[in-house]
């Protein structure tokens, strides 16, 4: 019999970075497998993380496939497993199985301008594809990031964002006015409308809360983006990761295997139940 798909591989946490503190804390974890294995992911894919005794949770991989030394996950503390992960320390061991799902069709985007649009923790799945594009920058056109959160304290990857400014256009926003904030004030979709990215030869990739995605798509449509130029990722509760446990479906699609990456052209044909 083939390898048992439900058995996680053990991995060590080698670095933990506190991204956001407060009531909605986010931490970034870097992990390394204890034993070599065939785990190899694409941009946009997810992995099932285990805290033994607490259970499993599906998390998007925020490191680029070019990064061979570790897997990175940026995790908002929310439920049982993510809370347990937030209590772990460097050196502790977790379980990982996967990778799961489809991926951003980044090979088809060569020569195009890429506009990344993220909200809150939604920057995590974007981070993998953004860094992959940066690594092969000459293969793509102009790279732009439009990213926002509730407050400046809720922005993830803050230090990296500052450095990123030198390599690509970065437009940050916070939802409400705050002291010393030099970026845009308003919701992410409004910032998109304000920055007016051109749809010419462009692909936009948007991840964030469902309500933000909905309005970003609307804003992009108003700017002239066609359905096939808009990509997003969908999340749902998952247990198996392989299209068998039956809970993450949108219509006939199981997000864990047919998603999480969708073009708006595809997603709009499915029942709007996510």
């Amino acid at each position: 019999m083939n390898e048992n798909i439900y058995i996680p591989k053990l991995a060590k946490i080698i670095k933990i970075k506190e991204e956001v503190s407060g009531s909605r804390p986010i931490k970034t974890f870097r992990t390394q497998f204890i034993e070599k294995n065939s785990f190899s992911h694409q941009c946009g894919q997810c992995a099932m993380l285990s805290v033994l005794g607490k259970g499993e949770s599906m998390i998007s991989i925020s490191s680029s496939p070019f990064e061979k030394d570790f897997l990175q996950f940026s995790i908002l503390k929310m439920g049982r497993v993510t809370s347990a992960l937030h209590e772990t320390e460097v050196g502790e061991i977790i379980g990982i199985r996967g990778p799961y799902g489809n991926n951003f069709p980044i090979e088809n985007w060569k020569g195009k301008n890429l506009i990344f649009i993220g909200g809150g923790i939604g920057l995590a799945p974007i981070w993998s594809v953004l860094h992959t594009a940066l690594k092969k920058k000459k293969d793509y056109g102009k790279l732009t990031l439009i990213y926002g959160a509730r407050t400046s304290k809720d922005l993830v990857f803050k230090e990296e964002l500052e450095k990123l400014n030198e390599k690509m256009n970065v437009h940050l926003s916070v939802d409400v006015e705050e002291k010393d904030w030099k970026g845009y004030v308003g919701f992410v979709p409004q910032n998109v409308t304000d920055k007016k990215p051109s749809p010419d030869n462009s692909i936009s990739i948007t991840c964030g809360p469902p309500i933000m995605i909905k309005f970003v798509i609307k804003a992009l449509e108003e700017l002239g983006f066609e359905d096939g130029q808009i990509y997003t990722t969908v999340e749902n509760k998952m247990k198996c990761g392989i299209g068998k446990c039956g809970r993450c479906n949108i219509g006939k699609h199981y997000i864990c295997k047919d998603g999480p990456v969708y073009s708006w052209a595809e997603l709009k044909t499915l029942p709007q139940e996510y």
Partner: protein
Amino acid sequence: MEKILTKKSFPAWIKKLQSYTVYSPEKQENLWSYEVIQNPDKLNLEHLNTVLAPKKIIYPQREIFLQFNTSKEGKPQIKEVLPEEHPAVIFGVRPCDAKAITLTDKVFGEEPKDPYYWSRRNQTILVGLTCNPPPSPNCFCLSVGGSPHSKEGLDILMTDMGDKYHIDSLTKKGEKLIKAAENLFKPASSKDKKELEKIQRESEKKIKREVKDIKNIPDKLKDMFESPFWDEEAMSCIRCGICTYLCPTCFCFDITDELTSTLPLKGKRVRTWDTCQFPDFTMHSSGHNPRPDKASRLRQRMLHKFQYHVENYQDYLCTGCGRCISLCPMGIDIIEILNKVIDHE
């Protein structure tokens, strides 16, 4: 290979199958259930619908995936727990329940395969029984592509012919069972075969309930996603989930960790059946729920069975056993719903 076995010889056949765990329906406090046969002489194959389908033997309601613990040095360890070797024969399988196993076969057989399911499935031999009369007043197998004498998924189909059984061996696994007691069987004569045909024809006539125009259901449902119809139909649902727990085709599951000790850490990861009828099934940890009400959950159950599964696997995820109708405490009736869908403007 068609044979005849007298009812008198039936227990002798069972007794020859010692290398297997043999299951058959048993009446317990007025309810029928597949249980391990203790006394072959008391075997009774005149059972009504069992509460649970034989699915429970291949895909049990709760099973252990793995065990975990921490070593003395604090290092977590994981041990895979696959089902033990367990060759089994199930007698008295209704054709609808056998067909249901062919449906879960497809889901758990799609790559990557489910090793727990297949470990049991590969060791299980299904001996069916023609339904004459139907085991439930709510049987509707004929509407969903089945029949009371369908061979689909079975290794042997037995048909009650009064004082004897007609035995139709359909697979190598079936042949093997007959070879275990070959001298008990006689070849079926042409007269027996005629008799069999007559019984099978009659058995079809005894199915009273029917979904009209089922072929148009998937397309109809597609256009009804937003309809208030689902609110009306789900009104009386008390979200007990029994319709899905008793369904021979429902396969959805949960995976959870169970602790036996926290220090040192010791426990197991288990799979349990789950149901789309519970709010928790789809609720994100943020509290957001894509299917927040009874209407959206009833719609999911119906659309999964009669639209999404058809789109993915070209078959209804329903074999017409009628359990969800007979045992719903609120009288929600899947046949009535489907017939209303067809009439829906």
